[in-house]
């Protein structure tokens, strides 16, 4: 019997095989091993939270070769880490730069030497930015494909076997999210080059507050809220940039900042060390200060 069901089944199995060739077992914790994705012949992307030891990390390649790997960099903020292979070479995965809600996806993992494991689902939701326990990610994907134990660091793949993102349960509360490939590959590049991901730092504590009609009139735009600075750390970038307690931060770099998520989205690694215009309301009047953004310790 050959029909569309068989064709669909064959292409899902083929997609699994293709992506399985780039999916490794990562052994860097005492409990069950986790998974990783080869994104260059000598580089493996995995989840940061599965790296519980920085020494004696081993990986198992799809062909059954066991190899030693060095930690090249890690970023707890996005729960991503990069391992470097020394003597062996892996087959790099192909990233898929787009995902759409409802599309068929497979979650893959290699938690044991018995072979690849898969589960089927769809892309359920996409969103972001998201604040994580130790940082933030720009975008995330949610899927209803079952994440089996040891799937963290493994790929979510589309029907062509291209990697849509990296699955992780590392953001807590039992929630499994997928970090989109486009973002994950960018972070992985930075980690491979410099060992860490820079994030911007101002040194303020703030609270979201409503903006009055009068304040919005002064701003000459509709913006329902801003961030009231409730403390400014001593010797911080904010203090050096003349920001004071009581200022309401309403914009950075020409972009409105109505809430904390918008602030985090602006404070990326790209702005570290740069002088960036900060728009605040002080005494009801808009003012712009140039602040040289620091790197988050």
């Amino acid at each position: 019997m050959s029909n569309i069901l068989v064709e669909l089944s064959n292409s899902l199995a083929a997609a699994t095989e293709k992506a399985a060739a780039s999916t490794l077992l990562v052994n860097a914790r005492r409990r069950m091993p986790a998974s990783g994705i080869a994104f260059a012949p000598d580089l493996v992307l995995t989840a940061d939270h599965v790296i519980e030891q920085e020494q004696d990390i081993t990986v198992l390649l799809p062909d059954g070769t066991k190899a030693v790997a060095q930690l090249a960099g890690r970023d707890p903020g996005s729960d991503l880490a990069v391992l470097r292979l020394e003597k062996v070479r892996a087959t790099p995965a192909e990233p898929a730069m787009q995902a759409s809600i409802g599309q068929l996806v497979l979650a893959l993992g290699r938690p044991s030497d018995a072979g690849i494991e898969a589960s089927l689902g769809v892309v359920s939701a996409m969103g972001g930015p998201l604040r994580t326990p130790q940082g933030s990610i720009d975008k995330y994907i949610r899927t209803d494909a079952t994440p089996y134990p040891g799937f963290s660091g493994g790929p979510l793949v589309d029907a062509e076997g291209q990697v849509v993102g990296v699955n992780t349960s590392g953001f807590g509360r039992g929630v499994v999210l997928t970090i989109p490939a486009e973002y994950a590959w960018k972070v992985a590049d930075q980690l491979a080059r410099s060992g860490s991901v820079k994030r911007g730092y101002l040194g303020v504590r703030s609270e979201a507050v409503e903006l009055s009609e009068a304040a919005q009139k002064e701003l000459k735009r509709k913006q329902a809220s801003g961030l009231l600075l409730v403390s400014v750390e001593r010797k911080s970038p904010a203090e050096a940039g003349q920001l004071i307690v009581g200022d309401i931060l309403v914009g950075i770099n020409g972009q409105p900042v109505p809430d904390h998520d918008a602030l985090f989205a602006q404070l990326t690694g790209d702005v570290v060390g740069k002088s960036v215009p900060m728009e605040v309301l002080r005494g009801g009047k808009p003012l712009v200060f140039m602040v040289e953004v620091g790197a988050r310790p």
Partner: protein
Amino acid sequence: MKATALLNAALDELLERIRPVLALVSNGRRGAGAGVLAGDGLVLTNLHVVGRAHTVQVLLEDGSRYDAPVIARDPHVDLALLQIPANGHPAAVFSSSRPRPGELVYAFGHPWGQRNVLTGGVLSAVTSLRGWHGEVPVLRADVQLAPGNSGGPLLNASGEVIGLNAMIFGGDQSVAIPASLIQSFLAGARKNQRMQAAL
């Protein structure tokens, strides 16, 4: 025709092919399991569905009902074989191809006693499980199963039996005994039968 309509038609066809070879197996106590017609009046099911009974009740899709003796059992692979009169019942086709992770699979059975329920997913892993009698090769799938699915077939997209559903983990992960083990169990049971007939 649109792909979704073609898919639905193909699923209907699969269901029509498999429905006549699915049995309901009851050992007279609470709960029931499923079974698969394997030809010559042989009905394959899980040993844990049969329990210690020597005879169980088999109900077929056409409404016929039999008291079936248990003629072979293997606790190592959780399989049992029942005998009903061999009067022209259809038989399931067992897959001889290598199972592939990611391929579409369907479980067919009687979850919670509801008759002839099909649930779908993909083959998650071709692996093994440490049982009471050592390592057993198994297939894992992400199909929804419930009590009453035991002994029922795990099918591939062509409607061939690739395994017999035997266990449930956490509601959305099933464990099936692979067709290769079923085939050797069947071969062994048939050989014993011939030897007994010759005595």
